[in-house]
């Protein structure tokens, strides 16, 4: 307990864990799009930036409360998600990937060339509103709502789309609209995450939301295990903490980080928790513990 307290009061651990929580919300949003629905998005950072800039500008110029700004940031990101979704959700696979990639670049260039966002000089003077408690309350809310979504009729429809679009269509699922809805929910969480990021860093620069950031978030989802919420959480935790904990090896840090990713992909191509249903694992462990020897037969 004392250890936990000292982690929370140490500003460095606090900072690292808060950043992890912020990216976790974004990753969970992408999890719904890529993991559950099976649609590739290489432009997730663009939605982060929309949430970040819109909420920051509201805080600076309109002085509206932070939670409202965060909500508006999320909704605005979702709106752009829908607008992007309408033309691009007719595409699949590589084509969709390229479209989202292009969108990500467009958003970044727009922010670089807009006066009100400070252009390439960045936007400063954002008050600090984000703290570890707010972030983790929102993480819990996000996990809960995604869990509910995934296990609803809507969520199962999305999973059906991922598995086989044609079969899903024949079962009466409007594939196109379901994809857009998934995209809207996923980008909403990206916007919220962006708002938290803006009020944590207190300074925004369009270069923070480049392709590499989108790719980082995609890595969290894919390495953790596509379609698994615990996987996404684990993936985000491992990949965002690894560069920090590897700091002691100095220049070799990113080398080891890269090697870690390659090893994970070789030994766990479906991600750390891909194809692992934690609920079932715990149940089988419990039944084993209770029944002593009554091993479930599917090993």
């Amino acid at each position: 307990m004392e250890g936990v307290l000292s982690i929370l009061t140490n500003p460095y651990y606090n900072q690292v864990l808060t950043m992890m929580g912020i990216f976790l919300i974004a990753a969970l949003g992408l999890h719904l799009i890529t993991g559950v629905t099976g649609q590739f998005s290489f432009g997730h950072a663009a939605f982060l930036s929309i949430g970040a800039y819109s909420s920051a500008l509201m805080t600076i110029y309109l002085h509206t409360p932070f939670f409202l700004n965060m909500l508006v940031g999320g909704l605005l990101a979702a709106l752009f998600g829908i607008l992007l979704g309408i033309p691009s959700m007719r595409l699949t696979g590589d084509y969709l990937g390229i479209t989202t990639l292009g969108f990500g670049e467009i958003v970044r260039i727009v922010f670089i060339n807009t006066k009100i966002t400070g252009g390439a000089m960045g936007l400063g003077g954002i008050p600090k509103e984000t703290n570890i408690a707010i972030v983790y309350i929102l993480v819990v809310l996000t996990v809960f709502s995604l869990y509910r979504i995934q296990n609803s009729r809507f969520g199962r429809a999305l999973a059906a789309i991922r598995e086989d679009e044609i079969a899903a269509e024949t079962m009466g699922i409007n594939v196109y609209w379901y994809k857009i809805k998934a995209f809207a929910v996923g980008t909403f969480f990206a916007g919220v995450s962006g708002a938290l990021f803006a009020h944590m860093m207190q300074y925004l620069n369009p270069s923070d939301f480049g392709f590499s950031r989108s790719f980082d978030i995609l890595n969290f989802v894919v390495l953790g295990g596509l379609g698994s919420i615990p996987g996404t959480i684990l993936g985000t935790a491992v990949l965002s903490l690894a560069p920090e904990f590897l700091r002691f090896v100095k220049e070799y840090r990113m080398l080891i980080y890269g090697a870690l990713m390659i090893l994970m992909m070789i030994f766990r191509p479906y991600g750390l928790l891909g194809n692992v249903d934690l609920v079932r694992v715990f149940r089988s462990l419990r039944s084993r513990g209770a029944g002593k020897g009554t091993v479930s037969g599917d090993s």
Partner: protein
Amino acid sequence: MRKRIYLFALVALLAVALLAAGCGGSKDAPKAAGGDTIKIGFLGGKTGAHAHYGIETLKGMQMAVDDINKAGGVLGKKLEIVEGDHGSNSSEAANVTQKMITQKVVAIVGDPTTGITKTAAQICQPAKVVLLSAGAVGTGVVEIGDYIYRDTLLDAVAAPAVTKYLSEELKWKKVALVTTTGLSYSESLTAIFKPALAKYGVEIVAEQSIMEKDTNFSAQVTSLSQKSFDGVIFTGYYTEGALFMKEMRKQGLNQVMAGGDGLLGQELYQLGEKAVEGSMVYAGFAVDSKNAVGITKEFIDKYQAKNNNSKPDMFAAQGYDAVMMLAEAMKKANSADPTVFKEALAKTKDFKGVTGTITFDANREPIKSPVYLQEVKNSEFVVKTVIPTA
């Protein structure tokens, strides 16, 4: 199923091992903090897009720390550098800044870029740790708070001095002004040059705007060819600068250009070749092998001895000066407590560094002298003149 559980357990074990290793490493830090060294943080990228700036800054800092420690340290204690490499990534920069603060650094030197300096400043100011950037030139940096400083040559100081030289020594009376629109560096430099040109009686006979990543400037140059002028003031970056000069030579215009350190890069003459010969670039530091004296010469010699005879650049020199200024402020204040010695740092006046003299004005902005005006000669930057600023 069982195999999967084993695999999962293995991966989980690895993750825990990683966590444990990390925690173990950082737990050692407080022990060292109680020792008898004064810790100064280095914030910069040793990898990533801005790695060159970071590595050079660190080299300069290390030389300064070695020099100070050889002379007995500060307040009877030795200086120690705590490295914070952020891989040129701003969210990592926030983490690493926070980490250095928990490791009890009294001051941080960095970051070489304006953007990350602003990010770090937001953390250093409330934590009451001095941040002295050895590279940030953009606006809105020291305004963040009274713990934030920089030791760079500001365009607002340099551009008027250079304009004075162009007008009085080189007798430029008419110039063409070329701005890269959409590039904040170029637009703000143009805004500084305009009043300076007016002040020294230089007329702007033509103004042209180009875009970053443009490669064809024939329209702009054709328009310029109908005017007569003594030179071009170019406020953009080296790539466009080189190509612009090439187009001018192609159309038979023989004027040279002058601009800020955005033009400073070997790409200027690699790309521009003969067309940029004679073009002038100013910067806060350059190696003037013939005329360097005193500590500047010592610094250059020492750097060359350590680095296979390669010349130190502006970042190394500013990194060196940053540590020296911090040490002097601590000595003056007789304290290594940032809340105390920041007052002494703010009062820095006529500090003699290897890049020249540095004074902090009432707004804690650095006023530096001199400006190094360099000229491209035989595909190399050569110091043309050293201009003292007013």
